[in-house]
């Protein structure tokens, strides 16, 4: 007996899902599923089992059709996509110049974006190349209130605190500390520096870093009094110094006169815990006395160790943090140094430890460059946007050329969706080729950026091998750009009625207003965006110039910094000063050297500070001043005018009453501008000294101290010779008429004559200052480059639309000429169009500037983000160059021959 056909919702579902099945399989597919479902339904009805449970079961089964349909998706590619691709390649090859321009601008745009993103990825997003980096946390003080002494980074602790943390913590399955510095490997003469990494015993095992060769340290290697233990070298050092010799294990390397045995080599991808820096040699913390004396181990006021740990399974960073806070009171009680400055003891004891995630390591580079890099990424993104607008414009122009082709295809039965897909495949091809080239270009550009950020004193080391994020970013950009520039033209060109297009047949006085208005809007956007970019480039460039020409208070040209170190001479401490004087006398005697002086705090590089109050004032009212320890002739060397009193001289020795020279800002802050010479001030006690009075013997002009960007602040200069604790080193500043290389050679020779065991390193003062404004230079250089690129693209866009306008209006122009229009009128006709477009672009761009440049405010020096000169210059520049871009088509308009034009179709 025939049964009625099933009508359950499952049949609807299958019909619906069938939509995504490739068309040529769809009918069969639907029938197979429908037949199975209705057969089952019939059967169930026959068995009297068609209840809600079996119905639900059927529905569930029909949902499986989705998986089946999805599985069939690749077949869509197989037939239709391959066909589209083949046709797309053919179309692109047919129009080589368009393809070349498109690919080049995409490659530049995607390349620049990817390069910057790659840098951001390396400094910000990437985790350390160690085992399970997400389990790592850093332990440091919650704030710096209780920290006194020599502080490397606010997140570092002293060795006594580290030892307490190690012994008391319960949150970490293992914990380690590390610190860095550079030391000199050369036995004398010019310094050959090596970047040291001092690590506690569990460092390598906690991080899960295996040795590439030999072995790594264990906790047995790091015990106080370990003397001269083994040494681990980095892969890079191994390659550089030993040529990757496999027999390096067991060889000796002499550090500060101690021959140390090389026991291991670290793997190539491991650079330590600091992103942006690498290391050469690693020693256990216990071995630091052999290179730096006992200070760092015992001192409770040298903050130089970073503490990291691996969380115990099941512990969160928050739990670890609260455990660290709980143990803090007892821990700081136990670690309190005996000589801690009394006013700071309470703050020290009140300090609290916290734990923060540390999977991506620490990085000075990150702190300094993260914000500029995001900003540059935004700027580079704008360049890409402009490039996309350009391509969209070109494609729109091309689309109108292909109008008839498209119309014919539609007429013979191509569906609109299929045509759009075909056009999008062409865009996708462009984007894919441009993206691939761009990704390659990014590899070069990002390495160039790293070189840009490196200085001789501070080389940047970054792992730039592309990871999934970089690949994903470049791919995403390519797809996005493809949609941006390809979708609109594809939709527009297929929207036309085929009949109308075929009838129009290209004959017409002027091109359709509507399509033209979209292209105009694109050019207006381009001009607006390039105004934003040119204006920000000008802002950054002017900011850099301002920084370079800012009044520092001293003259840096012709000054050389030389750090001489005579520790290896093993002189008795009381001979140090006499030896320094001798060095200085010999250097001052060099022909061409105008002045030289000892300077412990090189301006804009080192810094120190103290709490001081004037004699007779309340000690509690002590205020901060910067401090600089300098020798006689310092002011002469830097050409800082001495306004009153005297310079330091041979009278100022250890044992004589302490004297100081102050600057004008000091006099303003502490003496209300009174002449300070003859007054006395007190310096708050430090762990080494009690409260100490200083007599002011001189007054000098204000200078920059720590940073070019700062306002002049108070500085107290101490006489370097009165510092009993000075070490066996002489940081010198030398003003010379000779070229720098020559001064370096002569000074090296002179020091070598005195004693070959003196080691020395040199830096030009101007080079050093230039390095402090690297960030501004980066912003200025890159934003100028991007600004120019954007502007160039915008001009090409403007030129494109105007010449298209001239071509498509040839007919109209011919009639005008025939009716007596002058050449001048003709060119004005076209130029006016250019002018209108540019002015519209500027009008749109100005409000955008105000919105955008506010972000850049913190990166500018001496300028507001709305600096009128920069904005005016940017607008003027754009107007001028845009007129040139407009002039070329305008001239072509005047050359139209009316006879030819009227015959033209």
């Amino acid at each position, binding site marked *: 007996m*025939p*049964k*009625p*056909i*099933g009508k359950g919702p499952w049949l609807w579902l299958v019909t619906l899902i069938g939509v995504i099945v490739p068309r040529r399989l769809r009918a*069969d597919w639907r*029938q*197979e599923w*429908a*037949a*199975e*479902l*209705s*057969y*089952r339904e*019939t*059967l*169930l009805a026959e*068995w009297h*089992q068609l209840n809600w*449970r*079996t119905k639900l*079961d059927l529905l*569930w*089964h*029909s*949902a*499986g*059709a*989705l*998986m*089946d349909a999805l*599985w*069939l998706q690749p077949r869509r590619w197989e037939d239709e996509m391959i066909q589209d691709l083949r046709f797309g390649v053919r179309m692109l090859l047919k129009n080589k110049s368009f393809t070349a321009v498109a690919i080049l601008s995409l490659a530049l745009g995607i390349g620049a974006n990817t390069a910057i993103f790659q840098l951001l990825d390396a400094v910000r997003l990437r985790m350390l190349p160690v085992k399970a980096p997400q389990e790592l946390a850093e332990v440091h003080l919650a704030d710096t209130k209780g920290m006194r002494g020599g502080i490397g980074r606010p997140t570092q602790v002293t060795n006594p605190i580290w030892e307490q943390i190690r012994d008391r913590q319960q949150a970490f399955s293992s914990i380690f500390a590390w610190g860095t510095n550079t030391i000199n490997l050369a036995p004398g003469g010019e310094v050959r520096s090596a970047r040291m990494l001092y690590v506690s015993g569990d460092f390598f095992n906690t991080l899960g870093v295996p040795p590439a060769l030999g072995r790594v340290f264990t906790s047995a290697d790091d015990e106080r009094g370990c003397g001269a233990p083994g040494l681990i070298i980095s892969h890079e050092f191994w390659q550089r110094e030993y040529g990757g010799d496999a027999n390096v294990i067991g060889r000796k390397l002499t550090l500060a006169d101690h021959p140390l045995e090389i026991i291991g080599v670290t793997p190539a991808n491991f650079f330590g815990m600091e992103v942006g820096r690498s290391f050469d040699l690693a020693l256990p913390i216990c071995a630091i006395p052999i290179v730096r004396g006992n200070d760092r181990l015992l001192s409770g006021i040298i903050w130089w160790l970073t503490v990291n740990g691996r969380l115990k399974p099941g512990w969160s960073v928050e739990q670890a943090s609260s455990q660290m806070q709980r143990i803090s009171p007892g821990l700081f009680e136990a670690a309190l140094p005996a000589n801690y400055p009394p006013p700071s003891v309470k703050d020290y004891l009140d300090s609290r430890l916290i734990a923060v995630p540390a999977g991506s390591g620490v990085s000075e580079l990150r702190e300094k460059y993260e914000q500029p890099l995001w900003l540059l990424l935004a700027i580079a993104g704008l360049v890409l946007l402009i490039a996309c607008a350009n391509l969209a414009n070109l494609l729109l122009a091309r689309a109108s050329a292909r109008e008839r082709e498209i119309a014919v295809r539609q007429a013979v039965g191509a569906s609109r969706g299929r045509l759009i897909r075909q056009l999008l495949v062409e865009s996708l091809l462009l984007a894919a080729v441009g993206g691939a080239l761009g990704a390659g270009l990014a590899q070069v550009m990002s390495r160039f950026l790293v070189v840009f950020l490196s200085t001789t004193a501070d080389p940047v080391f970054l792992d730039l091998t592309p990871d999934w994020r970089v690949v994903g970013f470049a791919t995403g950009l390519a797809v996005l750009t493809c949609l941006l520039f390809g979708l609109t033209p594809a939709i527009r060109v297929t929207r036309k009625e085929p009949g109308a297009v075929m009838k129009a047949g290209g004959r017409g006085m002027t091109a359709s207003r509507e399509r033209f208005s979209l292209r105009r809007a694109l050019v207006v956007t381009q001009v607006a965006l390039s105004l934003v970019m040119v204006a920000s480039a000008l802002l950054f460039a002017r900011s850099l110039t301002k920084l370079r020409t800012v009044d520092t208070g001293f003259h840096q040209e012709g000054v050389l910094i030389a750090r001489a170190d005579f520790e290896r001479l093993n002189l008795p401490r009381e001979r140090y000063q006499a030896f320094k004087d001798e060095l200085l006398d010999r250097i001052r005697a060099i022909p061409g050297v105008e002045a030289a002086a000892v300077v412990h705090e090189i301006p804009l590089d080192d810094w120190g500070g103290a709490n001081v109050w004037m004699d007779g004032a309340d000690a509690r009212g002590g205020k901060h001043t910067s401090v600089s320890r300098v020798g006689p002739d310092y002011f002469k060397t830097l050409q800082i005018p001495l306004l009153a009193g005297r310079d330091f001289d041979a009278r100022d020795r250890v044992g004589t009453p302490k004297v100081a020279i102050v600057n004008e800002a000091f006099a303003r802050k502490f003496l209300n501008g009174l002449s300070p010479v003859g007054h006395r001030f007190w310096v708050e006690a430090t762990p080494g000294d009690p409260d100490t009075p200083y007599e002011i013997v001189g007054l000098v002009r204000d200078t920059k101290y720590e940073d070019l960007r700062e306002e002049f602040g108070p500085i107290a200069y101490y006489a370097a010779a009165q510092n009993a604790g000075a070490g066996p080193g002489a940081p010198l500043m030398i003003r010379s008429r000779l070229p720098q290389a020559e001064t370096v050679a002569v000074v090296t020779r002179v020091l070598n004559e005195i004693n070959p065991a003196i080691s020395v390193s040199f830096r030009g003062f101007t080079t050093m200052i230039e390095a402090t404004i690297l960030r501004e230079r980066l912003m200025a250089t890159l934003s100028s480059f991007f600004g120019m690129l954007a502007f160039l693209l915008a001009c090409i866009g403007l030129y494109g639309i105007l010449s298209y306008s001239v071509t498509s209006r040839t007919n109209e122009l011919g009639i005008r000429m025939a009716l007596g229009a002058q050449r001048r009128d003709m060119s004005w006709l076209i130029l006016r169009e250019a002018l209108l477009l540019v002015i519209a672009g500027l009008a749109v761009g100005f409000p955008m500037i105000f919105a955008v440049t506010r972000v850049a405010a913190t990166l500018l020096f001496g300028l507001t983000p709305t600096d009128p000169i920069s904005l005016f210059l940017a607008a003027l520049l754009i107007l001028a160059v845009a007129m040139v871009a407009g002039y070329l088509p305008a001239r072509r308009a005047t050359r139209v021959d009316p006879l030819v034009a009227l015959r033209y179709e």
Partner: protein
Amino acid sequence: MTKSYLSYTMALILQVLDHGYRYGFDIMTITGLASGTVYPALRRLEDAGFVVSKWERPGIAQAAQRPPRKYYEVTGPGQTALVEARERFRLLTQLKPLATNKPARQKG
């Protein structure tokens, strides 16, 4: 897919087909696999040439007033692959062939 290697699910489906369960839903009932697993597996087996699909004669379907069903049969290469698969998955050999050509009853 590689012809020499069948996953357990694929081998199971092939074995069940060999035993005479020829329709997608019958396979689901006997194996307990979800429809989202069985159908893609059938498509892959078909791509690999291990099974072929045929439409049921229209007369039968017309008599039951429903669209013709599609059924699957194991091919020669499919038999070879099944022999190999039985070596690897011993459990497959314990399946009993279908006695008649009637579809299995669905439980519940």
